[in-house]
């Protein structure tokens, strides 16, 4: 029979090997998701002046919402502010690459789109950017998930994912929930 010290040592070494195995499995799964399925944490670093973002540049009122560039890139620009998203409804096509860009003029907000892996914080002074492909159509809830003040629970928007054939931007390449 092994001595008590030997038994404890063997037990600790076995657990060390077991935990190393578990961590290795999880790390390999994360690497696989990143390399094969392109699921990576959004890592855009881009600064913007929160004091003037509504006055000049891409986050002025006329630029908000979904627009399609001449080469076909779909981009949605959203301002997250206490306690609303502007615009409150976004329309995007299914099964096409979409870029979501967020900025905040006041405090830290956060967004997630239910049923998808879209999830990011929106920090004043930075542009948060998420690339994704929506595969299911329908209205997806996009709540603020970073406590931002007393009206936080009222702060949400809809992402309306429509079949590609029903996604009809206007002549300027803009698409809204009213007109699609």
């Amino acid at each position, binding site marked *: *029979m092994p001595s*008590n010290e030997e*038994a404890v040592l063997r*037990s600790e070494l076995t*657990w060390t090997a*077991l*935990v190393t195995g*578990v961590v290795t*499995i*999880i790390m390999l*799964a994360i690497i696989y*998701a990143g390399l094969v*399925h*392109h*699921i*990576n*944490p*959004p*890592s855009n670093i881009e600064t913007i002046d929160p004091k003037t973002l509504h006055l000049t540049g891409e986050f002025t009122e006329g630029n908000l919402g979904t627009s399609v560039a001449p080469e076909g890139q779909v981009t949605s620009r959203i301002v997250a502010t206490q306690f609303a998203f502007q615009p409150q409804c976004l329309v995007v096509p299914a099964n096409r690459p979409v870029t979501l860009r967020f900025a905040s003029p006041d405090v830290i907000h956060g967004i997630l789109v239910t*049923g*998808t*892996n*879209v*999830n990011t914080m929106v920090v004043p002074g930075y542009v948060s950017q*998420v*690339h*994704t*492909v*929506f*595969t299911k159509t329908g209205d997806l809830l996009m709540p603020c998930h970073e406590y931002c003040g007393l009206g936080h629970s009222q702060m949400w928007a809809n992402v309306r994912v429509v079949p590609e054939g029903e996604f009809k931007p206007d002549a300027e390449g803009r698409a809204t929930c009213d007109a699609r």
Partner: protein
Amino acid sequence: MSERDGSAARERDDAADDLDDDALERVMPDVPRGAWALSGLTVGLLLLAWILIYAYVFLPRGMVS
């Protein structure tokens, strides 16, 4: 607690002390098996839950970067 109850409790403690060292030595190797079973089951279930959510929730939700 009355005087009688107190002495009864002491008698029970004394009864536990009647175990001889050999009997203790025989039973001690079995004690960690329960800890192993409980911790192994807990970690196993946790890993299984993680893998199920990874495979059936996280991956199907699609690409994001």
